[in-house]
C-alpha cells in the first residue's frame, strides 16, 4: 500500500537562527526511515513521466523501488548508470522544474521528493561502501579535458571508464569548478566534491591544477602533445557588472569574487589568510542561485542586514525554490521590483549607500517574463556598506581567443553542432556553461556525458 500523504517527508534542517551563523550544511538529509517512507509515496508509473524531466534520464522509479526494499546500494547502482555526481545533484538540482515537476503525485499535493532520495542514496553509498573502484585497462588513447567543473569531470569519468587515458587541466589550484569556488559549503560540502574527484583519480584520471589553457598550453599544443580529442568544459566564469556609477568603490564585489574569497579561499574560517569585508549592511543585486548564495554567505559572515535587490518580482526569480525559502528563513530581506541606479561612496572611497528605483511589471519580453519598467520619481537610497553584483556571467574569452577556427556566438559561447558537443574544430568537443552560458550542474553533467560518448565514437572510427 503506497504512502498517500500529500506532502513530502520534510527535510531535517539546522534551525535558521543557528545556521545563519555557521557554514555547516543546512539540510541534514533523510534518515533510513524517512527515505523508505518517502519512497513509498512513489506509484511506479508505467510511463515514468519523472524520467523525462531529468536531463540525464535517471531511472527514477527503479531506484526508488530499491529504496523501498532497503537495498540502498542497489539504488545507488541504478543512479550511477546515468549520473556520476548524485551526491551533488541530489543537493543542488532545481528539482521543482525538472524531475519533480513531472511527477504525477505533484498533480494533487507535493511530488515525490526525488532529489532528497537521490541525495540519501548517494550519501549512504559514500558512508557505507568502501569497495575501491577498479581502474579499467587502458586502451592507449589520450584525451584532454579542459576545466574540472561538473561537465569536465563527468566527461573525464566516462572516458576513463571506457579505458581512455584522460588528463583534466584546471586553471585554479583546486578541481571542482563552481562546485568548489561558487556553491558554498553550507549547501554543498566540499568534502563531497573532493570524494568524487578522488574516485576519478582512482580510476586513472589525471588532474593537473594550475594550468590555464590558452596561456600555458593552447588547444593546438595539446594535440601536438598526443591528445587525440579535447573536451572544453571551461564554464562561464566572466562576471558582468551593471556599468552604473560607483561600481569601482571599495565594498563592491562581483559575486564570483565574494564567493571565491569565501569558498575557495576559505575567508570564513577564523585565521584565514584571505581578507574579506565584514560588512554590516549588504545588498546583493540579482535573483538567481548565485545571488542567494552570496546573500547567505554575507549573513553568515556577520552582516546585520542582507537584502536581495531584484528588478523583477519573486515569481520571475531564477533561483531554486528551496534556496529562496532558506534565504528567507535565515532573515534575508527581499527587495523585489527594485533596481540599482548608482552606488554612493564615502570620502575615502568605501560604499555608503545604493540608489535604487522601484519597478513595476509591464508586457512580457523576449524571455517570456514580464518586463520590469521604472516607476517615475520612485528613487530612494538604500543604506548599505557592501554591494555584491550577481547579475550573471559569460564564458571566459581565454580559450576562444587562442584557438583558431573555434566558432563562438555573440555571447562568447562555444557553438556546438548538436548534443554530441562537436565544435567547429575536428576532435574538439565542448559542453556545460561554456556552451550554454550559466545553467545548471545537471545540464553540464549531461553535456559531459554526451561528449564522452561522441569522443569515444570519434576515436574508435579513426582507427
Amino acid at each position, binding site marked *: 500500500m503506497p504512502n498517500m500523504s500529500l506532502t513530502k517527508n520534510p527535510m531535517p534542517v539546522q534551525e535558521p537562527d543557528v545556521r545563519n551563523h555557521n557554514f555547516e550544511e543546512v539540510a541534514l538529509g533523510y534518515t533510513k526511515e524517512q527515505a523508505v517512507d518517502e519512497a513509498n509515496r512513489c506509484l511506479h508509473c508505467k510511463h515514468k513521466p519523472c524520467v523525462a524531466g531529468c536531463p540525464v534520464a535517471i531511472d527514477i522509479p527503479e531506484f526508488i523501488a530499491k529504496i523501498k526494499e532497503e537495498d540502498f546500494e542497489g539504488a545507488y547502482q541504478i543512479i550511477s548508470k546515468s549520473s556520476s555526481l548524485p551526491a551533488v545533484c541530489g543537493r543542488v538540482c532545481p528539482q521543482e522544474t525538472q524531475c519533480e515537476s513531472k511527477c504525477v503525485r505533484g498533480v494533487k499535493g507535493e511530488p515525490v521528493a526525488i532529489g532528497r532520495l537521490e541525495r540519501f542514496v548517494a550519501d549512504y553509498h559514500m558512508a557505507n561502501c568502501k569497495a575501491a573502484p577498479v581502474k579499467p585497462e587502458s586502451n592507449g588513447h589520450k584525451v584532454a579535458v579542459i576545466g574540472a567543473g561538473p561537465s569536465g569531470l563527468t566527461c573525464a569519468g566516462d572516458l576513463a571508464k571506457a579505458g581512455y587515458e584522460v588528463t583534466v587541466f584546471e*586553471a585554479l*589550484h583546486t578541481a571542482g569548478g563552481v562546485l568548489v569556488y561558487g556553491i558554498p559549503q553550507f549547501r554543498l560540502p566540499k568534502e563531497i566534491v573532493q570524494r568524487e574527484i578522488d574516485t576519478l583519480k582512482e580510476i586513472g584520471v589525471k588532474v593537473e591544477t594550475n594550468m590555464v589553457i590558452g596561456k600555458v598550453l593552447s588547444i593546438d599544443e595539446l594535440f601536438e602533445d598526443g591528445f587525440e580529442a579535447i573536451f572544453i568544459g571551461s564554464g562561464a566564469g566572466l562576471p558582468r*557588472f551593471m556599468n552604473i556609477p560607483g561600481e569601482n568603490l571599495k565594498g563592491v564585489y562581483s559575486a*564570483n*569574487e565574494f564567493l571565491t574569497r569565501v569558498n575557495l*579561499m576559505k575567508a570564513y574560517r577564523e585565521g584565514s589568510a584571505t581578507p574579506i569585508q565584514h560588512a554590516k549592511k549588504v545588498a546583493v543585486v540579482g535573483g538567481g542561485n548565485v545571488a542567494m548564495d552570496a546573500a547567505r554567505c554575507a549573513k553568515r559572515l556577520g552582516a546585520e542586514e542582507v537584502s536581495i535587490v531584484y528588478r523583477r518580482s519573486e515569481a520571475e526569480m531564477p533561483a531554486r525554490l528551496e534556496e529562496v525559502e532558506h534565504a528567507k528563513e535565515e532573515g534575508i530581506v527581499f527587495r523585489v521590483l527594485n533596481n540599482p541606479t548608482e552606488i554612493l561612496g564615502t570620502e575615502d572611497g568605501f560604499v555608503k549607500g545604493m540608489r535604487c528605483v522601484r519597478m513595476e511589471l509591464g508586457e512580457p519580453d523576449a524571455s517570456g517574463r514580464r518586463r520590469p519598467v521604472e516607476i517615475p520619481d520612485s528613487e530612494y537610497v538604500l543604506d548599505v556598506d557592501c554591494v555584491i553584483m550577481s547579475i550573471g556571467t559569460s564564458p571566459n574569452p*581565454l580559450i576562444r581567443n587562442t584557438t583558431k577556427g573555434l566558432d563562438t556566438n555573440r555571447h562568447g559561447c562555444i557553438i556546438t553542432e548538436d548534443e554530441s558537443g562537436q565544435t567547429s574544430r575536428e576532435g574538439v568537443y565542448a559542453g556545460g556553461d561554456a556552451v550554454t552560458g550559466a545553467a545548471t550542474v545537471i545540464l553540464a553533467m549531461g553535456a559531459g556525458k554526451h561528449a564522452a560518448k561522441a569522443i569515444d565514437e570519434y576515436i574508435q572510427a579513426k582507427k
Partner: protein
Amino acid sequence: MYEILKKTILNPTVARMEIAAPLVAKKAEPGQFIILRVDEGGERIPLTVADFDREKGTVTIIYQIVGATTMALNQLEEGDCLHDFVGPLGTPSHTEGLKKVAVIGGGVGCAIAFPVAKKLHEQGTEVHSIVGFRNKDLVILEEEFSAVSDKMVMMTDDGSYGTKGLVTNALKELLDAGEQYDEVIAIGPLIMMKFVAKLTKEYGVKTIVSMNPIMIDGTGMCGGCRLSVGGQVKFACVDGPDFDGHEVDFDEAMERATMYKEFERHQYDEACNLFQKEVR
C-alpha cells in the same frame, strides 16, 4: 610542487628566486606574471616574471617583503617547494617597432621593468633607463639594468646614491634636453606612475604603465582587479597589466588598493610574531 632552485637576497627587503616551472618558462614573455601560493591554505599572490630560462625550465621572481604572504615566501630556502605556481598570466608587453624608449623603474617596480628593458635591448631598441629608490640600501638590479641600457640614470630620494631626486626629475631633464622617445614605460608605485604619466602627457609622449591591483584568480573570473581605463572597466589580469598611462584612473586605483589595509596590517603582525618565534 615547484622547487626553489636558487635564492638571492638583493636588499634587506627584496629577494630573488629561481623556480623550476618548465611549462611556464616555455611560454613566459616580459610583462607577464605568475600567481603563487606558498602553502596549502595560503593566499594567492601575483608576482611578475622577472626573467625566465626556457632551456633550464626556470622562472625568476623578485619580491619585496611587504606583508604576510611575501614574508612566508621569504621563509623558504633553496630546495623548498611552492605549493602552487600558475602562469604565465596577463598580456605580454608590447615592444614591436619601438626604436627608442625610456624605461622607468621605481623601487621593486624595477623587477617588473627589467625584463621589458632586457627584451627591448635584445631587439635593438635604444634603452634609456631611469631607476629610483628611497635610499642606497634599497638599490636592486643596478648591474642588470646598466647591462641592457644605452643610458642609465640612478636616482635616490635622499641622495645617498646616484642623483638626489625623483625619477620624474630625471625624465624631465632628458625630455627637456631634447630626447625623443617612441614610448616611456613606467613601472613602480602607483603614485610614481601617476606623476610620470602626468609629465609625459605635457610632452605628448606615449606612456605605458604596469598596474598591480589586488588579484585572486588572475584569469578574468573575479573582477577584483578591475580598473577604469579611458572611462571603461578593464580587468588588469587579462586586459593588462600594461595600460596607457594617460588613460588610467590612478586615483581610483590608489583608493582600491587600500581595501584590505587593516586586515593586511594584522596579518603582517601575526606573521612577524610567528616567524620570530620559529627563529627562537
